[in-house]
């Protein structure tokens, strides 16, 4: 009934390989057992219950989750760079403290998500390697530059805003650890969006030049923000399966529409124009109509040809290499402490043994 050592994260990749190896044997008994497992998995999903790390799950479900959560984790980590660019040049101590806290949160989001992938048998070191080697993706949005401090505000407002739209439904995603990470992340994101909007409100009540900066940043980030929801549903072949598994809860186009509907009134309040001549309220649909993002540009950025792709990856690689001595020092310190503790633990016993030998006991 009980097994050694299987916490949330305790299934080693080896165990999983064994499990898969076992499933690979195709005698009838195994097929029977497999069908029962598949049925139980399907029942759990249908009942809208969560799949937990030690439950049986189809290989493709596991692979899809690892890919999606890793991509999400990488986005949080790479996403620190565009704003990190402005920490040292924030215009006040207040703005600097806020920006630092926000960027630190993004690091935390990355870590929650890497931890979630490890419950599926992935390994964070391996995922980091794949990111650095350009073998796994992150969100296309972070390949655009932050040219002025207004970009910091617009990122909080539009990029974190779009992220929230994407992430709120993921709080109900079918995989337990992913859903729990998203709940934690969503709680923190609302500060991100509000600090950005507040920053923009402040700039809009400033000089003409500041207002122009806000409008220009809005013009540059609006379309890339719409692309954050992914390609149109018609070009998103994996959506149907992800929805059937209840990993995804809404389609790309549904989420994009929701984001536009939420954002238009915010733009009006702020006094900026969203750069889309086709944007208008459609009373029949009860939604805003809007133009089509430049999907050719989206594909180019995904393919590695965005304005900052090379810079982002090079920076991530350098940060990882520069951190090597810290990791080495921490390991060496832990080893030294462990050796000292072992020596201390031995001392009384060793002393007693000596006394006994000397006949003093």
């Amino acid at each position, binding site marked *: 009934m009980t097994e050694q050592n299987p*916490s*949330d994260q305790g299934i080693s990749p080896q165990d999983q390989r064994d499990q898969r190896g076992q499933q690979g044997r195709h005698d009838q008994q195994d097929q029977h057992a497999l069908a029962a497992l598949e049925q139980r998995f399907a029942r759990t999903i249908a009942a809208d219950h969560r799949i937990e790390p030690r439950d049986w799950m189809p290989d493709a479900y596991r692979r899809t989750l690892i890919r999606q959560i890793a991509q999400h984790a990488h986005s949080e980590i790479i996403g620190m760079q565009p704003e990190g660019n402005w920490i040292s040049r924030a215009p006040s101590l207040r703005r600097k403290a806020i920006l630092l806290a926000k960027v630190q949160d993004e690091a935390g989001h990355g870590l929650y998500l890497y931890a979630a992938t*490890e419950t599926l048998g992935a390994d964070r070191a391996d995922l980091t390697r794949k990111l650095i080697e350009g073998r796994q993706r992150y969100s296309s949005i972070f390949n655009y530059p932050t040219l002025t401090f207004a970009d910091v505000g617009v990122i909080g407002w539009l990029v974190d805003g779009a992220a929230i739209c994407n992430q709120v439904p993921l709080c109900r995603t079918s995989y337990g650890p992913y859903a729990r990470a998203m709940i934690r992340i969503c709680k923190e994101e609302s500060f991100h969006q509000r600090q950005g909007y507040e920053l923009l409100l402040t700039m809009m009540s400033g000089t003409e030049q500041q207002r122009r900066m806000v409008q220009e940043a809005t013009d540059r980030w609006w379309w890339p923000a719409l692309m954050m929801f992914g390609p149109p549903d018609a070009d998103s072949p994996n959506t149907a399966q992800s929805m059937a598994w209840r990993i995804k809860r809404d389609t790309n186009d549904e989420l994009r529409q929701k984001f536009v509907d939420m954002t238009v009134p915010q733009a009006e309040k702020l006094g900026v124009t969203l750069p889309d001549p086709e944007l208008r309220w459609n009373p029949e649909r009860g939604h805003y109509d809007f133009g089509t993002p430049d999907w050719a540009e989206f594909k180019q950025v995904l393919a590695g040809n965005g304005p900052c792709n090379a810079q982002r990856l090079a920076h991530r690689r350098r940060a990882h290499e520069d951190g090597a001595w810290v990791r080495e020092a*921490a390991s060496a310190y*832990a080893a030294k402490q462990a050796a000292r503790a072992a020596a201390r633990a031995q001392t009384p016993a060793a002393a007693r043994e000596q006394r006994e030998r000397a006949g003093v006991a």
Partner: protein
Amino acid sequence: MSGDGGGTGAPARGWPLYEVFVRGKRGLNHVHVGSLHAPDADMALRNARDLYTRRNEGVSIWVVPAEAITASSPDEKDPFFAPAGDKVYRHPTFYAIPDDVPHL
């Protein structure tokens, strides 16, 4: 489960995995909030503070080596829990008491 290195700087086997439990406030149980890798328990505790309690989410943290946890088998409905399933008499609602008996 190996951890943190990404190829450079950490031991080949990676740092051990710790499960993190946080007591939200006095009077509540510690609750599992997630996990992290660290070279030792002290560092795990410091990292857990930075990672899981940036907004006063806790007054106390436990970190437990993941390997030290023994868990029941995966299926939450398996016979391991059957002994509790057929003992309805452990619940107060099992006992029929006339309505006019006060405070019971």
